[in-house]
């Protein structure tokens, strides 16, 4: 296939570029990364920075910006609804993270054995994660409708009913947390399964010979060796909880932040301020505080996992 001309060209090429072969690799590298790097910069990096810049402006109805300095931050300090949102967010995270950890690990231990039955079960536990959060919110809202929803009637029959899942400020957030757990637990089960697979069988065999029971084996082998996985799960679920990654869609459809702001996590309140009242500057100020909080969490996460490489050394 190779013509003489091509061969000659290649030889010339090789001769000319021997010195700059390194530079050619550099240029190729930059060009290959360019589209993604540019896109991430424009649609993730710049927004993060812009969040800070926007926070010192006030936006009028016609899209005009006027510099207001720290006014938005002062307003935030004096806004009881901001503090309420911060509290609800913290409560959401504090409930979600341990529950998700327990359910994810519990399910993983349940279906840990690799056989056909467990493979089917894993898929069943994971299936809710395939449905969109909007649909999840709709279906659960239907199931907990006061008095006539299937879950409402079931809890009433068990004698723990009589309350409104979404209408009572004391239960609305818990309901949102439980729906989030239902949606997410299959995903975390998978991550735990990955972690469990990395624990060498021999440790368990040795422990069994020494007479360690199931609980002892879990406590002294599984849990300690699962530390990297646990760490990953806790950090990721915490960041997701604070950022409202899943909570937003569920809350937007189920409660819109109500009743009495009981489910108004910060991100829902920020969204209302920005797209409900056009208070872009104020929303950006609140979002900046969130970004800073998340950056600190990410930095700690990053340092502790050696630059996100986990156990891959290259």
């Amino acid at each position, binding site marked *: 296939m190779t013509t003489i001309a091509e061969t000659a060209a290649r030889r010339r090429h090789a001769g000319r570029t021997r010195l700059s072969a390194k530079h050619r690799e*550099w240029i*190729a*590298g930059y060009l*290959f*990364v360019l589209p*993604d*790097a540019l*896109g*991430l910069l424009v649609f*993730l990096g710049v*927004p993060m920075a*812009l*969040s800070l810049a*926007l926070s010192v402006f006030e936006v009028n109805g016609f899209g005009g910006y006027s510099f207001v300095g720290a006014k938005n931050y002062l307003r935030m300090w004096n806004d009881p609804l901001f503090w309420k949102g911060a509290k609800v967010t913290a409560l959401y995270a504090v409930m979600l993270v341990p529950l998700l950890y327990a359910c994810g690990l519990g*399910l993983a231990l*349940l279906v840990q054995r690799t056989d056909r*039955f*467990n493979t089917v*079960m894993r*898929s*069943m*536990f*994971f*299936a*809710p994660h*395939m*449905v*969109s959060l*909007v*649909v999840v919110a*709709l*279906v659960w809202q*239907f199931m907990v409708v006061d008095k006539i*929803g*299937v879950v409402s009637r079931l809890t009433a029959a068990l004698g723990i009913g009589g309350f409104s899942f979404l209408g009572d400020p004391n239960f609305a957030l818990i309901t949102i947390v439980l729906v989030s757990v239902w949606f997410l637990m*299959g*995903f975390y089960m*998978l991550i735990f399964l*990955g972690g469990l697979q990395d624990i060498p069988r021999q440790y368990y065999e040795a422990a069994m*010979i020494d*007479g*360690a029971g199931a609980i002892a084996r879990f406590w002294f082998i599984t849990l300690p060796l699962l530390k990297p*996985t646990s760490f*990953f799960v806790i950090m*990721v679920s915490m960041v997701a909880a604070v*950022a409202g*990654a899943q909570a937003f*869609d569920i809350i*937007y459809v189920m409660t819109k932040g109500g009743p009495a702001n009981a489910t108004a996590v910060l*991100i829902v309140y*920020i969204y209302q301020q*920005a797209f409900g009242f056009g208070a*872009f500057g104020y*929303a950006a100020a609140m*979002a900046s505080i969130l970004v800073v909080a*998340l950056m600190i*969490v*990410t930095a700690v996460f*990053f340092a502790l996992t050696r630059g996100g490489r986990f156990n*891959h050394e290259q």
Partner: protein
Amino acid sequence: MSSKRPQPYFSRSQVTLVRGVWMLVTASLAFMTLFPLFWMVSIAFKPAAESFSSNLIPQSPTLDNFIYVLTAVPFIRYMTNSFLVSAAVTIVALFFHTMAGYALARLRFPGREVLFLSIFSTFLVSLPVIIVPLFVIVKAMGMLNSYAGLIIPAIFNAFGIFLLRQYYLSLPKEIEEAARIDGAGYWRIYWSVILPLSRPIMSALAILFFLANWNSFLWPLTITSDPNLWVVQLGIANFKSQYSASWNYMMAAATIVAIPTLILFVIFQRQIMDSLKTSGLK
């Protein structure tokens, strides 16, 4: 169990019994997990009067709810929009991410590590946190109420780049070296060596990207007000505010929205679960 050392081994019948109970517990938990989805499909086939009856199997199953929903609301249009957006994002994202992943794993250039770490650091920035400034940027670019606005910002995420880079790190070096000796340039190596080798991970990622975009709600909600551009998730959220009392219609609509992804899952469950299992940790 009366010997000096406690024996960890059970008799054969005990093992069978324990395993049987274990399987029973697992199966009932799995059924409880799936119950909301069964319930949704069940109501979708029930006439309005039966919506709140407690039977899982409809007494008089009907397709009327589906017919009503599909004729009252342009769900076909919404689904077409969702499909176009998800497919476009998936194709472009895979193209860009394989390029970036290849370079970050295999090419040597100054600043590579810094670049990778910067990309990785955006891993945990989720959409809700930057939605306000992102809206401002996309508005300034004139992409509000457009397919471009739905598609372009959704392309870029660190997850796919990270996963592909990890995959390329594990490929043997000899394959590209052979190509290089044959005189292939970097683009040629990428196109005819790396891409064909990426087929398994690309199909897994394609499913994940498609699903994520089919299910996305917040971004389309924020930037589209024109009903002609609505994706299916917006369609159903809006359907809810119009038909909030007609649960049989709502569950039919929810089923219509959920079924495509559930079917995808049934077909590709192994790829989906394997790719997620190895995503963050290895």
